[in-house]
């Protein structure tokens, strides 16, 4: 009899892929999601490389000339480069403005998402693990927050805090943390009831270690999905605030500001000033959502064999 009673000699292994490899192959099974991921990657790369691939820096007032304003797509600017997407009322080349605007929109969305995730997850984890009064109080706060539309919360905070990129991020974090808290709390409740957590307690491991080293890594799946969708939501929310005029300032326009600026021209035939930033916003949000959808399907344990 062999020493290692469970290994039949020469028997093949149970699995040959790592969990990540399997996740990757399952993700790319969907053509739409693969396309969306590619599109998103392209958008991010373009946004990152903006200073090097645009003919104009729209924030540099020296480069912007109002005489270039409101020119249709394809026109040639005063300084000689072609404005493929036209220009806005202030004379900014829309192609450049969109790419720079994407930088701001995406970074605000991602930054607020990450911070909200960190804060919301910790709160949700503590609520689930502690249980009892703590959990009740925390979750009622979460419910209270979630009963307000996120836009309303953000508006109220911005009214109090004022304008500017840091204040917008704070407002977005405040509007979003509750989603993360609720998601993580649900997931953590399920995990806390599992036997490996009981085993950890039996082994005398401390509470903090159990929560952050045992429970949290197993809550990542729904967290990633919510994170993706919420980031898209945050970007849209920032655009909404900017569109309403309470978001970012005119001098550093995000996509929302650009759309707002062009709104007055919509009826007079100069559609491109709002239209192209709108398309850019749409593509960004839709691709994030499509990726998030596929992530949800792939990471859902119930759909697994």
């Amino acid at each position, binding site marked *: 009899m062999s020493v290692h009673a469970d290994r*039949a000699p020469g*028997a093949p292994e149970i699995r040959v892929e790592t969990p990540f490899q399997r996740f990757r192959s399952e993700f790319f099974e969907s053509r739409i999601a693969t396309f969306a991921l590619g599109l998103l990657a392209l958008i991010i790369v373009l946004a990152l490389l903006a200073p090097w691939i645009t003919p104009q820096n729209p924030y540099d007032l020296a480069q912007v000339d109002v005489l270039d304003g409101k020119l249709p797509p394809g026109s040639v600017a005063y300084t000689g480069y072609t404005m493929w997407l036209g220009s806005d009322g202030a004379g900014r080349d829309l192609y450049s403005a969109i790419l720079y605007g994407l930088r701001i929109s995406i970074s605000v969305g991602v930054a607020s998402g990450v911070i909200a995730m960190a804060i919301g997850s910790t709160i949700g984890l503590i609520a689930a693990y502690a249980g009892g009064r703590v959990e009740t109080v925390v979750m009622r706060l979460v419910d209270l927050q979630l009963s307000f539309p996120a836009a309303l919360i953000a508006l109220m905070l911005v009214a109090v805090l004022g304008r500017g990129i840091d204040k917008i991020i704070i407002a977005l974090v405040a509007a979003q943390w509750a989603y993360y808290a609720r998601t993580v709390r649900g997931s953590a409740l399920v995990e806390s009831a599992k036997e490996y957590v009981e085993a950890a307690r039996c082994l005398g491991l401390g509470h903090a270690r159990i929560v952050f080293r045992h429970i949290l890594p197993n809550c990542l799946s729904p967290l990633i999905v919510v994170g993706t969708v919420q980031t898209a939501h945050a970007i849209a929310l920032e655009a909404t605030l900017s569109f309403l005029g309470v978001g970012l300032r005119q001098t550093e326009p995000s996509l929302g500001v650009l759309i707002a600026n062009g709104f007055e021209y919509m009826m007079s035939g100069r559609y491109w000033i709002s239209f192209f930033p709108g398309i850019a916003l749409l593509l960004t949000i839709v691709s994030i959502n499509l990726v998030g959808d596929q992530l949800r399907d792939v990471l859902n344990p119930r759909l697994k064999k």
Partner: protein
Amino acid sequence: MSVLEVAGLRTHFFTRAGVVKAVDGVDFTLERGQVMGLVGESGSGKTVTGFSILGLVDPPGRIVGGSIRYRGEELVGAPDERLRELRGNRIAMIFQDPMMTLNPVLRIDTQMVEAIQAHESISKKAAWERARDGLGQVGIPSPEERLRAYPHQLSGGMRQRVTIAIAFLNNPELIIADEPTTALDVTIQAQIIYEAQKVCRERGAAMIWITHDLAVVAGLADRICVMYAGRIVEAGPTDDVIDRPLHPYTVGLLGSVPSANKRGQRLNQIPGMTPNMLALPKGCAFRERCSRASDACLVNPDITEPAAGRAIRCFHPHGIEVPA
């Protein structure tokens, strides 16, 4: 004519990771009123065999070969409508989880009446009465009250009894029971086996009882078929298989049960693990765990019949006794 004749059944699953030959060579015959125990561990293919008979194998799986004859009629490749006519009517199935049969949002009487009226045009009242009698026959007290209940209001044992009652509603000739008592307590299991036995005897129905528990089939079955890695490796009358097992796997299985070993001593264990169905070893699937294996076993043995009613798939079976 036999109630069921299965010959050379092969059901394969075509997954992304490869082909799983869940059932790869199953032959048996079942006569009227007989109870057959289909015994095996996880991965042996016993559940898939049951599903194949009823035509319940979903993609990526399908029956790739062999024949299943119910009273002479070929079921493999039969049109869906014909299989639907037979299911729940002439051939019934009892699942391990009663909630696979019962709809949690419908009352018991609704479900039972529906099961009757799907196969027979009788009045709702008559169907209701048949349902009530059916519940009474499986030992459920106050059946009228139980009929008005929802599944979640019943205990696990009670629910399983209801599914047995549903299985017998239309007087089937063949029942396939897939591990119906595995999840139940010992005393409830005994009750369920008792009821199933009784109804089978009274109606003369044939039954296939799929399980991993040899002790249950010892008390219940007329014949035993032992499955390993998708193939039947041994078959025969119950007493014969349990008292004089031939296949090394059966011998190992019977020998590893605590009651077969001296109290407090190490159990006789079968070394190794059940093979990975995606990468079965060449030849006999039990070869790598078998103390009697030789080079001859690199070829998959065929079924041989050392005595009437006895079947074995092995080149090196244990001593054969020919009954007098």
